[in-house]
């Protein structure tokens, strides 16, 4: 493949994109040869997403030029990009759950019969052609809501191909997949490549990038710092190119754990609205000074288990003890006041009041106690002073504590949340995906904070999709699959691969 005389599929020259106060892309140069798998790596905030949005016509660049197959182009909408044969698979799937696979694929580009009726037969035929050509195996009649994550991703890819795309942009396609699904995806990508498609994909899992890419471009702080051949670099080299310095790693230093239980779950079962168990008979004890990791593919009951501990789950049976008190019937506030710290997995949804100033966000969840409150009154002065302390101690970078939470970057928002929870002296910390979507620097800070709190005797339940994080931080890891705890492993002698096998039920 990749004949040298044909023009590159995509060529970017000097692309610059500025947002108020930041330069997201700074003189980016990129050449993607026809028919190759080209990876773009970089830490969060390095400008990968902005670059993809420019390529897909979602945002115009401020400077620079773009060539597709040698012709200069200017996209003003994704429609223009699609017309040039460029398609994008977003990190967060954009599928309608209540429609079938076929309906989703043709949505927005339906073949028509007379009187505006949809020609399902034509659509089906075309889909079969695509399926057999690329070996993408999905039943067109399945409802999307019944599909697994990997299948949904395949639907997204087919959708893009259906629109005639020959250049595919995949935005962090492996972020939501377990190792086995990643292999499946890579197989599909190779087949697409065989058939002449060009794939540009974003990732920050370096082993994966090395396994699949033909060429790797590294972005750092909005600049293209290097384009390398995966056969000549190691993961360590890549990481250094990305971060520009030594790489932090999540490792728990000391190993002593007390025998005093801080949180004890016994036979906890959570029913969903249809009275079906989403968490079933879970028993788990977390001791003081211990970090227990919960591994699992998303949607296997971890979220509901967290809800049950925090007190927002619908129907919960079984025993939940904090220290030696049964908190099963307590309302959320009493549990939080009783010493349950909570770092929610979606900080925008459950963690922050985005349009409120930072000091009010610091008070959220702790507004009943000093320093945030005095009797029935909000202690504005105390709350503000304490927020200043959090901002200083946890390195939250903000112009002031009156800035609204919305204005901060994800990493700084997260540092504020971690700070407010840890400074409220909790007995148990429930940390759900504490480093999701934040940059490497903030990630290291959050790890440090959790580790330090552990040293001070805090019991932590850590839920994470980042297996390295789980293995690195946890004293013990349990695996959840279909609402049950199916395995307990020692992080000292488990590999991400083994964990993946448990998480998908393959090892059962």
């Amino acid at each position, binding site marked *: 493949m990749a004949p040298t005389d044909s023009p590159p599929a995509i060529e970017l020259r000097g692309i610059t994109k500025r947002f108020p106060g930041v330069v997201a892309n700074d003189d980016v140069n990129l050449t993607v040869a026809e028919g190759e798998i080209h990876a773009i790596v970089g830490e969060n905030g390095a400008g990968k997403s902005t670059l993809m949005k420019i390529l897909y016509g979602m945002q115009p660049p401020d400077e620079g030029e773009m060539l597709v197959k040698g012709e200069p182009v200017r996209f003003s909408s994704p429609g223009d990009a699609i017309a040039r044969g460029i398609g994008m698979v977003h990190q967060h799937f954009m599928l309608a759950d209540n429609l079938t696979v076929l309906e989703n694929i043709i949505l927005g580009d339906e073949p028509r019969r007379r009187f505006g009726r949809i020609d399902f037969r034509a659509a089906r035929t075309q889909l079969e052609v695509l399926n057999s050509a690329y070996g993408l195996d999905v039943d067109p009649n399945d409802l999307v809501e019944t599909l697994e994550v990997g299948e949904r991703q395949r639907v997204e890819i087919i959708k893009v191909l259906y629109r005639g795309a020959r250049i595919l942009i995949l935005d962090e396609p492996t972020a939501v997949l377990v190792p086995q699904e990643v292999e499946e995806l890579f197989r599909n990508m190779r087949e697409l490549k065989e058939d002449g498609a060009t794939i540009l994909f974003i990732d920050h899992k370096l082993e994966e990038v090395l396994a699949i890419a033909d060429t790797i471009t590294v972005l750092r702080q909005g600049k293209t710092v290097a384009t390398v051949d995966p056969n000549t670099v190691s993961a360590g080299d890549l990481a250094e190119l990305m971060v520009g310095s030594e790489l932090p790693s999540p490792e728990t230093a000391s190993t002593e754990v007390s025998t005093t239980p801080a949180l004890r779950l016994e036979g906890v079962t959570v029913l969903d609205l249809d009275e079906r168990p989403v968490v079933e008979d879970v028993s788990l004890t977390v001791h003081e000074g211990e970090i227990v990791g919960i591994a699992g593919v998303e949607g296997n009951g971890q979220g509901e288990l967290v809800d049950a501990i925090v007190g927002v789950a619908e129907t919960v049976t079984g025993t939940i003890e904090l220290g030696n008190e049964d908190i099963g019937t307590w309302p*959320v506030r009493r549990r939080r006041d009783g010493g349950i710290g909570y770092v929610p997995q979606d900080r925008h949804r*459950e963690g922050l*009041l985005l349009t409120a100033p930072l000091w009010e966000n610091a008070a*959220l969840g702790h507004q009943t106690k000093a320093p945030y409150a005095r009797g029935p*009154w909000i202690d504005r002065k105390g709350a503000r002073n304490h927020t200043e302390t959090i901002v200083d101690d946890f390195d939250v*970078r903000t112009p002031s504590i009156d800035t609204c939470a*919305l204005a901060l970057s994800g990493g700084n928002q997260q540092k504020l949340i971690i700070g407010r929870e840890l400074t409220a002296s909790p007995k148990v910390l429930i940390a759900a995906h504490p480093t999701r979507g934040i940059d490497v620097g903030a990630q290291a800070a959050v790890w440090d904070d959790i*580790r330090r709190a552990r040293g001070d005797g805090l019991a932590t339940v850590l839920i994470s999709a980042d297996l390295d994080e789980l293995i690195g931080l946890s004293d013990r890891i349990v695996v959840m699959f279909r609402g049950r705890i199916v395995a307990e492993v020692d992080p000292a002698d488990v590999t991400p691969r083994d964990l993946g096998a448990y998480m998908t039920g393959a090892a059962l």
Partner: protein
Amino acid sequence: MNLATLGRRVGLALAAPAMATAFAFSLAALVLIVSGSDPLVAFGEMLENGTRLETMVDTLNRATPLFLSGIAAAIGFRMNLFNIGVEGQYLMAAFFAAAAGGAVDLPPVLHVGLILVVAVTVGATYSGIAGVLKVTRGVNEVISTIMLNGIAVAGLLPFLVRALADDSGSANVPGTTEISESGRMPSLNGVVEIFTREIGKGRELSSVLLIAAAVGVLYHVFISRTRFGFDLRASGINPFAARVGGVPPQRMVLIAMLLSGAAAGLVGMFEVLSDKFKYDQSFVQGLGFGGIAVALLGRNHPIGIAIGAVLFGFLDASSGVLQVSGSASREIVVIIQGVILLAAVVAYEVVSRFREREEARMAALALQATPTTSNAGGAA
């Protein structure tokens, strides 16, 4: 926060309503020109009339119930509850308060107190129905309060007025028994006249104004200084975050609804305690909807609501002269009010986007300006 940024904030906050008002007046001028009137003459007459002492009293008397109604709506808005039912709540409250006040004779302060307590209780009870429906059955409060308005205005009240009508007086409109002297709020004319000339034409500045001011202060203290107010605002901004932060969502809905209804109960008190002293078939309607407008205009802030209420009150009071002079139709005022509201909502959105961008820019600058000198966790 230094003085410059404070000034900037205040400037930004005022920019939107000022722009909206200016725009509304220009549009109204256009309408006047098209309809053959001279806008300068009409506005001139309104301004001249509006700055007369008697009209200013009128303005404040009209602004008082609008302000209370605005506060009632704002309490709901703060919690993301759309209490459309202020209308029905204040009418029900006014009726029962007037009926109770007319039925008894008590010493002066107690009498007024009773009427106020009845008004607040009835207002809260009536809005409480919508609250309970929402909490227990998930009925959207917009729907239920609209229905409850209908039930009150078209069903219950006409029936109750006739059933409890007092025919002893000379009045030809059926209504409740007139409240005796002891159950009336005094006029503030005496106080005002210390500073001004005598207020003529039988105009009396109602001391219900003071109740409204007190409610405004209470509202502000409650919303921004108490834990409970914090819970309420948090729920309004992000109910999910508030919930895991320990705020019980159901209870907050119910309490916010009750408080909103309680404030709504006071809306009719100007008429009951200072103007008509009874509830009859011609009792003023529409203040509930006016309150929603004023709350939107004032961004749920008590001072903003006060300014909005006075502005709307001024437009109402000053436009009376147009009818007499015939230089324009007085309905032009309704157009102005409507356009102000619409333009304000748009302008607020523009300003808040601008502010968000500005803050994001500042935050990004802060990020660049402070290269980490110490890693947070490193100290351990």
